[in-house]
C-alpha cells in the first residue's frame, strides 16, 4: 500500500512504485465496469498482481447524475502480492459530480482526483446534492485535483469516426482508460484488439472507441500535466511461472463445481432462483451446458433446493445456490436431504442483511444459519472460500465431501468474493485426484440405510437400477432397513449416527495449518472466508515488525479441524475478525472454551488492512 507515492515524485522520468489503488467512478451509463475490466486485463497481462472490486449501484439504472446511480470499480495492483482490492484509493477518476461526491471520502489524503469537468455543471451539482462547484469551493484541498474536460476531449477525438454525438460521448470511458494506461505505462494493444472484436457489427463505434483510447493516451504523453501528475512504472509481480488468467469468485465457483462433478464422475444438476449476488454462478453455468451441466431456473428457492435433491436422488449431483433470504427459504428442504442422506451442495453467496438488507453489499453473516439453522438436530458440513481463486478448490472439496459422506454441504461465499477478480495461476486439472462415486448396484444384502463402516455413509442407488427398488423419506427410519420407525431407541441411534457421520468428516480433512506465523505465540488471528486478504496482509505487516502474531484461516467451518482446539490453546489471545456481529467466535468459544475476542465490522464492505492491523496492535499492547 505504498502507492500513495504515485504522483508525488520528480517529473523527469517514470519512477517505480510498488502498488497503487485506482478507482473509476461515474454514472451507471458511463461504462465504468467495462473500463475496469479492460484495465484489469491490461494490468494482468503486464504481470502485476491485482485484486479488483466492482461496486454496482443498487438501482438498475437510476436517473443520470444522481448519487445512487453511481457505479464504481476499484483495482489494486502492483509488483508485490496483492491481498485485497485496496484500503483506500490513491487515484480516483470521477466522471461526474455524483461520482465525486460518493467516492472522494474514501480517497487517501493527498490522493489524486481526475474529474471530467465537462459534467461539472449546475444541473449535475444539484442532482449530486452539491450546493456549489466542489472544484472551486476549496473542499478538495486535501487532494491533488486534476480537472480535464474529458467530454470535450472525447468528442474531439471521435469526430471523424462517423458516430453521433451521443455515441461519441459514450467513448469517454475509453479516453479515460487511455489516460490511465499512459500513467501506468500499459500497452494499448490488448484493449484495441478487444474493442475490434466486440464491435465487428458496429465498426464506427469500434473506431470511435479506439480513437478515444488513443487520444487519452496521447493526452498523457503530450499535454502538460499539473505538478505531481505523471507516469510511473510498476514492475511485474513475482508470480510463480505459468499460465495465468483473471478470475472472479462466481466464475471460479462455477468452474470448481464442474471440475468437482467430473472428478466424482457425475452429471451436475444446478437448480437456482435468481437473487443478487448469487445469480452470477447460475449465469456462468447456464452457458456451460456442454460440460455435463444442467441448469434449472426454478420458481423459487424451495423448488430449486427440492429439484436439486430430486436430481441427487436420481443419481446426478444436485446443487442449489442462493443468498440470504433465499437461503432462509431452503431450510426445510436441506433438512430433508439430511434426513434421507443424499449428497447436495448448497452455495450461499452471502450479502448484507437482515431480511432484504443491502442486496448488493457484502457480509459474512450466514454462518449461524448454515451451521445451526434447521429444525431439530440436523448437522451438515459447512465450508467457506477465502478468495476468488480459492473458490475453485473449495467447490471441489464440497463435492468430495458431499458424495463421500452422502450429506449436504453448505459452501459459503460472499458478495466480495463473487464479484472480485484476481489473477490465477491456472491449475493443471490432470493433477487433481478423481473421487469417482460408486453407485450401489448389488441387490444382495442391500438395505438403503446400512452404512459404510468408516464414513457412516449410506449407499447411493440410482433409480432405474434393476433389483434395487426401495423407498426413502423424511420420517425417521429404522437404522438398518430404512423402514419408517417410531422406536425410541432407534431414534436415539439414528440421531447419534447422523451426528457421528458429520463429526467424522473431521478425520477426513487436513489438520488446520497456520497460514502465517508460528503455531504458538501471543496472538492468533482466526478468520474465515473473504477476510483472508486483509487479515493476511495485516498479520504480514506486523510480523515484519517482529510481532508474535499468527494467522489461522479456516476453510472447514463444520466440523472444525480436529487439531484446532489444541492450536488455539497455544496462543495468549485469539482474535476473530468477522463481517458480522460475532458468529464464528461463539463456535470457537463453545467448542474449545477459549476466551476469543471478536473484531466485527458490519458495513457492507470488507475490512481494510489498517483496521485489522490497528486492532491486533491494540491487543499486543
Amino acid at each position: 500500500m505504498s502507492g500513495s507515492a504515485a504522483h508525488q515524485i520528480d517529473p523527469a522520468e517514470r519512477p517505480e512504485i510498488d502498488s497503487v489503488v485506482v478507482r473509476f467512478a461515474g454514472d451507471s451509463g458511463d461504462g465504468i465496469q467495462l473500463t475496469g475490466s479492460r484495465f484489469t486485463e491490461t494490468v494482468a497481462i503486464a504481470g502485476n498482481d491485482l485484486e479488483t472490486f466492482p461496486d454496482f449501484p443498487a438501482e438498475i439504472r437510476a436517473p443520470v447524475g444522481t448519487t445512487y446511480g453511481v457505479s464504481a470499480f476499484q483495482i489494486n495492483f502492483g509488483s508485490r502480492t496483492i491481498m485485497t482490492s485496496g484500503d483506500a484509493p490513491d487515484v480516483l477518476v470521477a466522471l461526474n459530480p455524483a461520482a465525486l461526491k460518493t467516492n472522494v471520502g474514501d480517497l487517501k489524503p493527498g490522493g489524486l482526483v481526475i474529474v471530467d469537468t465537462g459534467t461539472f455543471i449546475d444541473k449535475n451539482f444539484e442532482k449530486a446534492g452539491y450546493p456549489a462547484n466542489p472544484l472551486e469551493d476549496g473542499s478538495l484541498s486535501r487532494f491533488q485535483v486534476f480537472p480535464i474536460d474529458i467530454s470535450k476531449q472525447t468528442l474531439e477525438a471521435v469526430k471523424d469516426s462517423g458516430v453521433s454525438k451521443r455515441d461519441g460521448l459514450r467513448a469517454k470511458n475509453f479516453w479515460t482508460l487511455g489516460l490511465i494506461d499512459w500513467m501506468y505505462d500499459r500497452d494499448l494493444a490488448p484493449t484495441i484488439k478487444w474493442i475490434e472484436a466486440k464491435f465487428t457489427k458496429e465498426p464506427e463505434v469500434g473506431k470511435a472507441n479506439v480513437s478515444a483510447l488513443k487520444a487519452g493516451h496521447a493526452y498523457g504523453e503530450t499535454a502538460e500535466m499539473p505538478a505531481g501528475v505523471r507516469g510511473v512504472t510498476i514492475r511485474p509481480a513475482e508470480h510463480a511461472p505459468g499460465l495465468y488468467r483473471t478470475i472472479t469468485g462466481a466464475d471460479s465457483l462455477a468452474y470448481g463445481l464442474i471440475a468437482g462433478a467430473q472428478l466424482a464422475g457425475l452429471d451436475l444438476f444446478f437448480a437456482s432462483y435468481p437473487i443478487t449476488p448469487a445469480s452470477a454462478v447460475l449465469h456462468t453455468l447456464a452457458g456451460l451446458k456442454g460440460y455435463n451441466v444442467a441448469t434449472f431456473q426454478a420458481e423459487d428457492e424451495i423448488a430449486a433446493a427440492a429439484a436439486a435433491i430430486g436430481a441427487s436422488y436420481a443419481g446426478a449431483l444436485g446443487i442449489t445456490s442462493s443468498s440470504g433470504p433465499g437461503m432462509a427459504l431452503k431450510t426445510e428442504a436441506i433438512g430433508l436431504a439430511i434426513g434421507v442422506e443424499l449428497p447436495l451442495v448448497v452455495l450461499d453467496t452471502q450479502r448484507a442483511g437482515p431480511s432484504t438488507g443491502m442486496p448488493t453489499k457484502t457480509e459474512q453473516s450466514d454462518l449461524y444459519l448454515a451451521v445451526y439453522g434447521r429444525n431439530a438436530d440436523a448437522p451438515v458440513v459447512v465450508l467457506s472460500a477465502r478468495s476468488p481463486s480459492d473458490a475453485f478448490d473449495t467447490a471441489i472439496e464440497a463435492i468430495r465431501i458431499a458424495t463421500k459422506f452422502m450429506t449436504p454441504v453448505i459452501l459459503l461465499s460472499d458478495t466480495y468474493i463473487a464479484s472480485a477478480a484476481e489473477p490465477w495461476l491456472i491449475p493443471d486439472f490432470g493433477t487433481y485426484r478423481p473421487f469417482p462415486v460408486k453407485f450401489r448396484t448389488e441387490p444382495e444384502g442391500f438395505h438403503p440405510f446400512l452404512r459404510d463402516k468408516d464414513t457412516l455413509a449410506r449407499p447411493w442407488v440410482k433409480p432405474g437400477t434393476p433389483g434395487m427398488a426401495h423407498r426413502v423419506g423424511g420420517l425417521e427410519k429404522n437404522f438398518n432397513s430404512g423402514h419408517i420407525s417410531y422406536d425410541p431407541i432407534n431414534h436415539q441411534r439414528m440421531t447419534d449416527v447422523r451426528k457421528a457421520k458429520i463429526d467424522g468428516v473431521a478425520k477426513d480433512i487436513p489438520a488446520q495449518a497456520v497460514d502465517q506465523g508460528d503455531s504458538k505465540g501471543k496472538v492468533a488471528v482466526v478468520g474465515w472466508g473473504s477476510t483472508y486478504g486483509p487479515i493476511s496482509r495485516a498479520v504480514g505487516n506486523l510480523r515484519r515488525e517482529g510481532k508474535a502474531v499468527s494467522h489461522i484461516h479456516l476453510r472447514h467451518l463444520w466440523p472444525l479441524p480436529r487439531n484446532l482446539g489444541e492450536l488455539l490453546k497455544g496462543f495468549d489471545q485469539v482474535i476473530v475478525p468477522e463481517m458480522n456481529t460475532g458468529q464464528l467466535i461463539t463456535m470457537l468459544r463453545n467448542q474449545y472454551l477459549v476466551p476469543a475476542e471478536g473484531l466485527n465490522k458490519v458495513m457492507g464492505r470488507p475490512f481494510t488492512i489498517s483496521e485489522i492491523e490497528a486492532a491486533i496492535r491494540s491487543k499486543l499492547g
Partner: protein
Amino acid sequence: MNDTVMPRALTPESFESDQEIRWCPGCGDYAIVKGVRKALAEIGTQPDQVVFVSGIGCASRFPYYMATYGFHTIHGRAPAIASGVKLANPALDVWVVGGDGDMLSIGGNHTMHAIRRNIDLNILLFNNEIYGLTKGQYSPTSRVGTRSPSTPMGSIDYPVNALLYALGAGAHFIARTVDTLQKHVPEVLKRAHAHKGASFVEIIQNCIVYNDGAFDHFTAKDVASERQLLLEHGKPLRFGKKLDKGLRFDPKAMRLEVVQVGEGGVPESELVVHDETNLSLASMLAALEPPTFPIALGVIYCNPAESYDHAFTGQLEAARAKAPKADINALLRKGHTWNIGTPR
C-alpha cells in the same frame, strides 16, 4: 441411463411392496393403490424404472406401498422434487402423488409450475376435500361452510376447482376419476401415462374418518349414473342411467345446458361432441358441478406439446455436441490468459 432389465410378465402384484398399508380401514386410498398397480401392470414398465414421489399426507404415504423406487418427501414439494428426478434421469417413469392440501395448499405453486413447464410427470391428486393426516382441518377444496377443528363456525373461503386451476396453469392434460371406479381409474391413468408432458389427474377420494360421504351426491350407487358424465373423445356428451340426458351449448348465454335426449327431447346431433383438444370446452367441462350438472369424468383435455424434459435434454445434447470432451483444462483456459514472463 439404466441397465437393461430382464423383461418379466407384470401383474398388479408385481407392484406390491412388502410394507403393510397403514391407511384407515375403508379409506378410498386402498382402491386407488389397486387401480394404480393395475394400470402400471398394463402399461408394462418394469417396477425398477418407475419412481413415485410424494409430499406429506395420508395420500403421500402412497410410495411405500409400491414395489418401485419411491421418495416420500416434504409437504407440498413433490412436484419440484419430481421435476429434478425427471430432468436428471429422463428415462425414468415418474409419478407424483399428493393430497389436496399437499398439492393445492402449500404446494400449489409447484403444482402450477410443473404443469406450466409441461414436464413429463404423471401427477395424481387425491382429493378428499380435507386434511386427513393432521386430523380433519378443512382444505382448499373443502366446500364453503365446512365445519372442522380449525373452522368450528364453518369455513368461509371458496374452494378451488383442481382441474380449472390446472388449466389456468396451462395444463396440456387433465382428467378426473373416482377412487371407487375400479375400471375407470386404470384407463384414465394409462392415458395420463401415454401423454408426454405433465398429466394432471384428479382422483376423487373418500376420507372415511374426516369427510365421509363428501362425494355421495355423485358417487352413491343410486345417483351415480345420473350425476356422472363419462367422457369419450369424439362422442356426444350423454349421461343418465338410460343415457337419456345430454349437454348442449347455448351460444346466447355462452353456457352448457342439460337437455333431455331422444324421445321427448332433442336429437343427439344437438349435443356437444367431446373434443379433448378444445380448451374452451375443457374449461366448461371441468367446471361442471352436481347436482345442477353431472360431474365430468375421464380425459377432459389432452393437447400435447413438446415436453420440458424433451427440450431440456435437447439443449444439453446440442451443447455437449459442441464441447464433446468437456475438457476442464480447456474450460479454465478459455478467454484471456497470459504466461508469466512470456506474454502472448
